[in-house]
Every structure is written in structure tokens, then in C-alpha cells.
């Protein structure tokens, strides 16, 4: 290798290393947002409600092939301590089993539960939600999924949050709980933990936020003004958040381990991959819709750009970091350059350590026993999870490139939802009870 070649290699490797370092460092910085100071952590929680329930809620519950869990979910929602709310169950015209469950629930509590039938030929979640939007009578529209376990006190807290902060949108916490089901569910749970516990609060603070798919509450007139959900977007939740925050609507996030909506991870690695592909593709679509360009601040636009591209950068860095590392070790580069190539590795290790602490904190918050083997799984599973993420990112780009978006994937989504739902009821039912204390 000539001197010129060596220099070239060194420069390229350093540039890549620094870029990766900054990407990883920023991601880490944001991921740890909630724990920056005790005050920040305290401010991520729900404020205690003052007891006056003044807003009326319309809770949307789209259900597709969810007959197994729907009843339980509705029963649980009916336990809510809030005074004024209605539950609108949205069922497909081609799904009589779920519809039957919904009708039975409506008959049992006619003043609370109503059923709306979605007659769209091809079905997806945003269409179902938009079908129900005209039927909403409340001041606030809330969205839940059919398998969600909602805390009875949640609505009162959200009510208070709307009134105390003057928010247009309140995003509550969603948490996957079944961390011990499999190696990937462990990481998946932790992703949710860091996202809802920490990162989303930063987004709320910065005024750019991709909302979550459920436990999200929007003032009804704001939602109608915005034209409801985007039926063609695969990540309609993210898109709604981006559109609302881009026009300056105030979004507030609150996370309380008591008050989160508990969910289960997808039932198989394949369905997790598909779900992630859908999200990634959805993020790409949101990026290309360019609503985020209306954001007033340059910093906000960069945050938007960065956040929407995160899945792809994550995938890329998951591949590049080891390659870069190997190049530094096996090619003959100067020692100083080799040290620089370790920078992204160092950030990755710091992230790892914080994940371990996060897992501990997660266990503490939810009263779950995290054993040594789980920490081990977390570490060993890390690289494999990266591979899965990279796979999902590549898959998303490929599908988007070939224009394979909504219809094809929506039917997939339906299938995966069904699997996930079934998996939840059969295999993980005891976990739910357990997790629920």
C-alpha cells in the first residue's frame, strides 16, 4: 500500500468514524433525555388530576379479527373512573365475529358503547378511524387498539393534562411488557421503554413529534380541522403527529408506569419484521410528504429529518460500525486513526450500558423480575436485533421503491395483527394477568 493509499484510507475511515460517532452520540443524547436531570424526569409524569372531569371523551377502538380480546378490552375501558366518555368500536363489514362481540358489549352498556361499521373495500386503520370520526360527540378523541389494557385512571389524568397545559394533543405512554417471552421481545420492550419514557418527551419539547398509534388524545375540532388521518400512509399515527406539530399545535407527553397502556410484542420475529417494515416505510412516506418542512425552526427541521431517517441510519450504522472496526484493525492504518475508529464503538458501548441500566429501571418500574439471563440476552441479542432492524429498513426501502405500499401491505398488516392478537390471548394470557398485578 502506497503512502497516498494509506492517507486516503485514513481520511475516509476517520470521516466515516466521526459521522457515525455523531449519529450515535446524538441518538444516545436524545434517548437519555428523560434522565438528564431529576427535574426533567419528574416533569415527564402525569400531573395529579384535580378531580374535576370536565372534558368529554370519544374513545375509538378499531377492531379487526379481534373477537378474542375485544371484550376484555371494552370491559376494562368501562372500568374507567372518568365521568364522561363514549367508546366507539369500529368493525369491518366483513368481520361478523368481531362485530358480534362489539354489538354484545354495546347492548350491555348502551350509554357508553357504540358500534360503527367500516364499509371500505380494502381496510386499514386510518380508514377505520376516519369512518368513526364524524360519529364522535366528545371534546377529545382518543385512540386505543383492541388488545390494549387501559388504566381506569388514565382518562382523568388526560383530562387534567388538557386543561392544565392547554394542549391540543396528549400522548400517553404505551409499554410492551412481555420482555421475557423471547430475546427480541426483550429488546422490543426496551425500545418502547426508551421511546415513550424518554425520547418522545424531547420531541414534545422541541415541537416536532411523531405520535404513537394509541393512547393518543386529540381535541376533536383540531383533528377535524386537520382532516383526520391520512388513509394512504402506513404510519398514520406518525403522520398525524408530524402534521399537527408542523402547524404549531401543542403536544404534551406524559408517562407514568402506573398509567401506561400495556401491550404485547408481535408474536413472532417475522411479524415484528413486518411491523417494523411497515413503520419504516411509513416514516419514509411521511418524510416524502414534506409536511415537516413547514416547521418554523431550522433545528426542528433537522430533528424531523433526522428522526424520520433514523431507521435507515440505524440500519446503516449497524452494518458500517463493525466493518469500519475491522478495517481499522486489519488494515495498516496509523494508531491515531485506529483510535478514532473506536469512537463509534465507544458510543455503542455507552448505549449498551445505558440499555442495561434501562432494563433494570424497567423491571423496577413495573415490578418485574429481571434476571441475569435477561441482561445476557440483552447484550447477546443486540447485534442480532441490529440485523433485524437493518433487514426491516432495507425491506422498507425496497417495497417503497417498487411502489408496494398500502394495499398489499395492509392485508399483511391485518394478518400480522391477527397473529399478534391470537398470540397474545393464547400464549401470553398469563403474562398479562401477571404483569397487571
Amino acid at each position, binding site marked *: 500500500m502506497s503512502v497516498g493509499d494509506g492517507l486516503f484510507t485514513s481520511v475516509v475511515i476517520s470521516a466515516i468514524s466521526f459521522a457515525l460517532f455523531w449519529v450515535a452520540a446524538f441518538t444516545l443524547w436524545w434517548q437519555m433525555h428523560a434522565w438528564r436531570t431529576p*427535574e426533567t424526569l419528574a416533569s415527564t409524569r402525569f*400531573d395529579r388530576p384535580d378531580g374535576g372531569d370536565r372534558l368529554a371523551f370519544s374513545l375509538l377502538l378499531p377492531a379487526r379479527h379481534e373477537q378474542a380480546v375485544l371484550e376484555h378490552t371494552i370491559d376494562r375501558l368501562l372500568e374507567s373512573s372518568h365521568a364522561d366518555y363514549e367508546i366507539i368500536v369500529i368493525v369491518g363489514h366483513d368481520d361478523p365475529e368481531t362485530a358480534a362481540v362489539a354489538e354484545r358489549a354495546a347492548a350491555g352498556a348502551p350509554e357508553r358503547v357504540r358500534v360503527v361499521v367500516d364499509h371500505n373495500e380494502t381496510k386499514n386503520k386510518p380508514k377505520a378511524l376516519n369512518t368513526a370520526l364524524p360519529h364522535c360527540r366528545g371534546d377529545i378523541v382518543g385512540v386505543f387498539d383492541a388488545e390494549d389494557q387501559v388504566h381506569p385512571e388514565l382518562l382523568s389524568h388526560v383530562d387534567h393534562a388538557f386543561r392544565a397545559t392547554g394542549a391540543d394533543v396528549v400522548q400517553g405512554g404505551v409499554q410492551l411488557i412481555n420482555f421475557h417471552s423471547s430475546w427480541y421481545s426483550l429488546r422490543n420492550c426496551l425500545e418502547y421503554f426508551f421511546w415513550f419514557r424518554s425520547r418522545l418527551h424531547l420531541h414534545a419539547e422541541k415541537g416536532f413529534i411523531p405520535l404513537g398509534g394509541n393512547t393518543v388524545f386529540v381535541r376533536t375540532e383540531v383533528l377535524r380541522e386537520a382532516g383526520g388521518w391520512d388513509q394512504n400512509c402506513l404510519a398514520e399515527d406518525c403522520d398525524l403527529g408530524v402534521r399537527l406539530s408542523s402547524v404549531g399545535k401543542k403536544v404534551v407527553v406524559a408517562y*407514568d408506569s402506573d398509567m401506561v397502556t400495556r401491550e404485547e410484542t408481535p408474536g413472532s420475529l417475522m411479524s415484528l419484521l413486518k411491523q417494523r417494515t411497515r413503520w419504516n416505510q411509513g416514516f419514509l412516506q411521511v418524510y416524502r410528504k414534506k409536511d415537516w418542512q413547514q416547521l418554523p425552526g431550522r433545528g426542528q427541521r433537522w430533528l424531523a429529518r433526522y428522526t424520520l431517517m433514523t431507521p435507515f441510519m440505524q440500519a446503516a450504522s449497524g452494518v458500517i460500525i463493525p466493518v469500519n472496526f475491522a478495517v481499522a484493525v486489519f488494515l495498516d492504518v496509523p494508531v491515531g486513526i485506529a483510535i478514532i475508529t473506536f469512537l463509534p464503538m465507544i458510543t455503542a*458501548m455507552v448505549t449498551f450500558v445505558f440499555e442495561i441500566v434501562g432494563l433494570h429501571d424497567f423491571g423496577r418500574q413495573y415490578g418485574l423480575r429481571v434476571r441475569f439471563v435477561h441482561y445476557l440476552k440483552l447484550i447477546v441479542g443486540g447485534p442480532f436485533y441490529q440485523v433485524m432492524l437493518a433487514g426491516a429498513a432495507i425491506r422498507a426501502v425496497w417495497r417503497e421503491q417498487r411502489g408496494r405500499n398500502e394495499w398489499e401491505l395492509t392485508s399483511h398488516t391485518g394478518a400480522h395483527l391477527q397473529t399478534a392478537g391470537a398470540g397474545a390471548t393464547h400464549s401470553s394470557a398469563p403474562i398479562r394477568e401477571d404483569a397487571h398485578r
Partner: protein
Amino acid sequence: MTATVPTATDPQPADAPTDATAGPQLLPVRQLPGSRRPAGPGPGAGDGSDVGDASDASDGGDGGSPGVRPSAGPARPMVRFRSSRPDLLLCGALLLVIVLVQGWNLTDFPALSDDEGTYLAQAWAVQQGEGLAHYTYWYDHPPLGWIQIAALTWLPSLFVPDWMTVAPMRFSMLAVSAASAVLIYVLARRLWLPRWAAGLAMGLFGLSPLSVVLQREIFLDNLAVMWMLLAFCLAASPSRHLWHHFGSGLAAATAVLTKETMLVVLPALLVTMWRHSHRDTRKFAVTGAITACALIGLSYPLYALLNNELLPGAGHVSLIDGITYQMSRPGSGFILDPGSGSNGVFRSWLYYDTVLPLGGLAGAVLLLVTHRWSVTARALAGPALAAVLLAVVAMRPSGYLPAMYVIQALPFLALVLAAAAASVTHAVLRRRRGPGERRALVYARWALAGVLAVSAAAYVLPRWYEGDRTALTADANAPYRRAAAWLGREVPDPAHTRVLVDDALWLDAVHSGFAPGPGAIWFYKADLDPAVTKTLPRGWRDIDYVVSSPTVRRDAVDLPTVKAALEHSTAVAVFGTGEDRIEIRRTDRESGS
């Protein structure tokens, strides 16, 4: 007096999460932690109130649970150093005095030390792009220290290359001392010492004759102290910010890589961080700091590994060899054993000052003993532990005690001595004081405090005045200066002349035109470095001059080539008299004896 008013508050208040009643907690509504004042007469309630442990006692209060704590609980007073005019004025005035005292006459006193020359020469090698040393770097110390010296001296040496010798470059240490002095003030305030005690700590640290002597010298320890003080300041960050704690870990690692003996202080840093972090965020903060420290610390073995110099092997130096050498250095005896080397070092410290080493240590012990009752003691637990740890390590009967060892202890000794003074003052003025105490008793308390203060000053000030006066007026380096000048003036063809010099004079010789390495030779390399020995096939006969300084004469006993060169040479110039004289000797190679 408000001796411990700021300390009579919670070092780790769990105020934030219980604030749920105070107002909207959701994100956009930011809450200013400093804006809350204690509702009750909390501060000044006394040294004995055990508020320090309150937050640990009330666990399980995770935000949502209502009314965990009475809202009148103690709040933490924020020390807003940058916007506090009295703090800035006091700190600025003290800084000026310290810089003047340490800076005045610093080239002439104390005597140039061999180690200073070593580090500066290696810094010079770094500046010249010759790697980590102008001889083979053999992992004697982590190189970060003289890399920093190289950075510090780079700009001045660019303008005046001749200044790149030991005496003028002591001015770079002045900057380090100034930074450390400010950091110690900030740290004292962050540990809730009252303003006067923070000033006292800064004064003790910067003006003790022992500090003045040692901090003037180009020692890695001085840089390490600066980094460690920064680490402590960040660990005691009033905002308890995750990344401040992370930064504390980074600074601590830098301190250790600057001078490896700083490892001893790390547990004390951990204690400080533990006490000053909040229960809810502590596990992230402390783990983050440890990770940061470990990862940066590991970069040193990583460097060795990348150079294939981690493990010992034939034909190359290695980190393990370097560590083995340092660990197996012959011990200098028990520190209290008269006649041992350690005892000599110890007495040389006490020669300059007894107040800071002995008083500080007594203060540290006092604080550790009164840990249960005194809030000040709990706030200062970290520095007190650091002082005690360093003392314990110095007491090892078999260990090697370097003369600069005490430098690392100076800031902690100063802090605990000031804190002990604050604690005693508080006890005298406030202990068991009722609301309606009789006037006479109040006067008596003040009188006692005054007597204590005056007698302390009467004891310390004359001694320090003497010590500092010497430092400001004595000229210990005239022989060195004249020897360096002679070398530059009288040697006809320096580029082709080979001279053995000690480290302190080496850069002077290089600036006079001697070739660094083969021409100007660190005297002991002539015997110990195979690469140098190879260039001296005929032993002392290949050498033209020997500059015989006290160091050279002392070490020549074990160095045959140097010894022979001294024996087969005649003094052509002598500077100074007695033990400290410096001779320039020309070898008798022409006589061929």
C-alpha cells in the same frame, strides 16, 4: 455567621418528584428547581439536623403517589456562581493574589528538577512530531500528561522557540494552578461550604508555601489535579445533569491518564457523585460516569495493543513491562521511620508547610468521625475520603513515595481543612442556640470564634510569610542558567559535540545547537538505552563533555559509562559551590588514558 447554612439542606433532595402538587408537570411546563425556597426556618437549624439522609429514607415515592413529603422540606440552594457578584469578587481577588505569589520569581525558585526536564523534553518531542518521546517511549507513564504540556507550551514556543526550556515554561503551570484554584472554589461552593470557607480553601490551596513550591514545577501531578478537581466539580453539579456526571467520568479518566496515581482518588469521587445525584436518576448518572471513565481509561491499553506493545516480548517495550517496573520500584521505607527515604520526602514537605499536610489530615479525620452529626462532614465526605485514601497509600511500608505525591492531596487537604474550620465555627456560634439566647452568651460565642480565628492566623501567617518570601526572592537556579549559557557560548561546534546532561538542562543544550539524541544525551540513557549505547562504541571516549549536576553525581554510582566519563574528565567551568554546584567537565579523550 452562616457557617453551614447552605449545608443544612438536603444534599440529595427528592424534591422534584414530589412536586406533583406544585403545578402542571407535563413537559412544556418547565420547573425551575432553584426558585423554590424552603418554607420553614429550615436553614440554620443546626449542624445536627439529619436532613442529609432524608431522601434515602423516603423511598418508593415515585411521583404519582401523593404527598410523599411535606412541602416544607428542605430545598437545595442553588449556587449560581457565575451570577453571584460576591463569589466572583472573592474568587477573582484570591486568584489575583495566588497568581502573583506563584508567578513571581517562578523561574528562579525552586531549583529545576530532573522530572520537569523529562516531561518538558517529551512534550517537546511531541511538538516536533517525533512521537511520544525523543527516546523510545517505554510506558513509564501514560503519555497524556506531556501531550497536554505540549499543547500548553505550543503557542509560546512558536513565538519564542528559545523559551522551550524548563524555567520559562513554568509559566504554563501557572495557568494550570490558576484553573485548579478556581475549580477548588467552585467545588467548595458546590459542596455547600459558606463563601468564606470556600475562599479559605482556595487560599490554603494556592498560598501554602508547599503549594507554591510544588505547583510552580512542571509536574504531571499538577495537571492531574486540575482534571480531578474538574471531575469533582462535575460530580457535585447542582443541576445533577446526567451528562455532567458523564463528563465527570471523562475528566476522572483524563486525570488518571495524566498521572496514574490518581486511581487512588476514584472511590472518593464515586462517593461524591453518589451523594450528589438524585435517587431517581442516580443509577443512570453513576453508571454513565463509570462507563465513561472506564472506556477512556481503556484507550491506553488499547493504544498499546494497537502498537503490539501490550504484552511483554523480546525486542520491544510493553505496557505490562512498564507497569511491572513501576510496581516493583524499590520501596522507600515507612514514612514515619526516621532515616527512610519516605521519611525524608515527608520531612521535606513539612519543611515548607505543616499546616496543610498535618492540619488537613486532622481535618479529614475529624470530618469522617463526625460524619453522623455534621452536615458539613457529610457534604465533604468525598474530599475527606480522598485525603485519607492518599494518606493510607503513602503509609504503605514497602511502597515508593515520590516527592510530588503530596501534590494530589493538596486540594483535598485544603478543602477539608476549610470545611473543618467551617464546622468548628458553626459549632461555636450555633450549637444548641435557642431562639432567645442571652446577649452575653452570644457575645461570648463570637469572642470565642474570634480568639480561635486570631490564634490560627497568628500561628499560620508568620510561617507562610517566611516560606512564601523565600519563594518570591530566592534564586536557586543561577548555576543552571550560567551552565546553560556557557554551553551555548563556549563550545565551538555544538552540532558535532556530544554532551551528557541531566534532563533539566537537556532542552537548553538542544537550543544551543547540540543534536537532540546523539549530541545532547540524557546522561542515564548512555547506559540504559541500548539505542544510545550503540552510538557510544568506545564508551566515555565518544563523549566530549559531561555537565555534572547534583542529579548526575548522585545517579552516576549505578551508571558505569557516566561514572567513567566523570572520572576521566576535568572541570572547565564550575558554577555555584558545594553540593549544588554544577561543573562542566571535558573528557580527556585526547590524552587517551
